[in-house]
């Protein structure tokens, strides 16, 4: 790749080779390095500071920061096409460590809403059984509120408990399931579009889903699945709508422990804004738990990454999890009072 050649030459120059260069050549190199420094593509590469040389740039790529996408011009969107590797700017927004992006389990901050609190990392106090006082409360039914209270999240938020006291199924390496894979740790995904389906690939905890586009109906009385049953259709040339049912209720909706029942229906709306940008909206509809549907993410930005972007692996190993619990999360629990 030309950029890595230019960069490695630049590094050599720094070691003292400059006096042997013609002035014109040196100017070219400087211009290249300066230009590439501020290009999002090189940020992808330089942000992966692993093995030396070109290898680091080919494997385990790290997406650029969200700010790198600002003001970037794009060509128009292709018709009826979602395929590509899409970045949810995980580190800046997609991780959703406080709960679904539109409803973080945080108290409002002075001088700003929960958004400001999220960015400051504040409002992360625990100990509340319910979510009274959060900025954008959810419309729980009595059954929903009871189910919420039974879920003990370890993430920063108003209900957090120490990790060892949490009953988050992910802390046992249970499958993350759908839609939690979009409402927590949404980082980099790949969408593969074929003649009769869209394949959703997620490097985080190794998830994949099939979204059928061959016109089949959703199942009426399905065997429940962690990722449910999904069908998709084009609303117009740039908007793809996915309906999902048949979801196993052992999963949480998000990292704040929001519950769902087996009656959950999820709508995903992928709107391709232009060639490089897509918006994802996820609607949660579960009348058993919530009195009305609500948005988990709303026009959440996804950015197209280069087609040779290598998505890093991050899997949940039960043995590694047990080791972490043994050495750290159990060991930091408050001492029990002596009887």
């Amino acid at each position, binding site marked *: 790749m030309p950029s890595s050649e230019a960069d490695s030459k*630049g590094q050599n*120059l720094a070691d003292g080779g400059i006096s042997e260069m013609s002035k014109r050549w040196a100017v070219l190199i400087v211009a290249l*390095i300066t230009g590439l420094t501020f290009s999002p593509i090189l940020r992808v590469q330089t942000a992966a500071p692993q093995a030396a040389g070109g290898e680091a740039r080919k494997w385990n790529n790290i997406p650029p920061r969200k700010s790198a996408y600002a003001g970037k011009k794009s060509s128009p969107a292709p018709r009826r096409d979602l395929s590509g590797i899409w970045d949810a700017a995980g580190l800046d927004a997609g991780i959703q460590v406080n709960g679904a992006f539109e409803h973080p389990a945080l108290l409002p901050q002075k001088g700003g809403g929960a958004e400001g609190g999220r960015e400051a990392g504040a409002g992360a106090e625990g100990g509340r059984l319910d979510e009274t006082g959060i900025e954008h409360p959810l419309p729980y039914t009595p059954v929903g509120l009871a189910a919420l209270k039974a879920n003990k999240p*370890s993430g920063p938020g108003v209900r957090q408990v120490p990790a060892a006291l949490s009953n988050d199924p992910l802390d046992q390496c249970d499958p993350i399931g759908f839609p939690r894979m979009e409402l927590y740790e949404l980082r980099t995904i790949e969408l593969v579009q074929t003649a009769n389906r869209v394949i959703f690939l997620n490097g985080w905890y190794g998830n994949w889903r099939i979204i059928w586009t061959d016109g089949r109906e959703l199942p009426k009385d399905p065997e429940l699945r962690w990722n449910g049953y999904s069908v998709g259709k084009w609303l117009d040339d740039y908007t793809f709508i996915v309906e999902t049912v048949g979801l196993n209720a052992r999963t949480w909706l998000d990292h704040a422990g929001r519950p769902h029942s087996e009656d959950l229906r999820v709508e995903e709306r992928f709107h391709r804004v232009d060639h490089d940008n897509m918006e994802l909206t996820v609607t949660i509809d579960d009348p058993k738990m919530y009195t009305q549907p609500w948005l988990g993410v709303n026009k959440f930005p996804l950015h197209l990454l280069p087609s040779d972007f290598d998505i890093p692996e991050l899997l949940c190993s039960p043995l590694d999890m047990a080791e972490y619990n043994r050495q750290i999360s159990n*060991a930091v629990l*408050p001492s029990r009072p002596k009887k």
Partner: protein
Amino acid sequence: MKFLLAFALAASGVIVSVPLFAHHGNASYDSTKTVTVKGTVTDYMWANPHVFLKVDAKDNRGNTLHWIIEAQNPLSQTEVGWTKNTFKPGDEVIVEIIPAKNGQPIGRFGVAGPTAGLATQESRIVINGKQFKP
């Protein structure tokens, strides 16, 4: 020309400092205290759910404490410039942490404040006498 080249290379190393959020909250840690641990690395685990570092350090009375200090998951640590080779056994380190509330020699990379223990890269880290800069 050398100046220009130096500028370009320096600019490419600019790091934007933003919080990195922990998927486990800091409920078990004292977010009002920053403790500086100075000692020798005995182990470095590059694993999900949390990367962690083990350091043998002497307390005020000269007893050796076996510290365990946790960071975030490997992917999040990679995003802020850590690698599986950032620490190795035998390294002499100075690291800032917030301590476990229960008094055990366990900590989390971070400094006291509103984002204590949620933002690994706020810690000052010195490895073998050199300030760690990813």
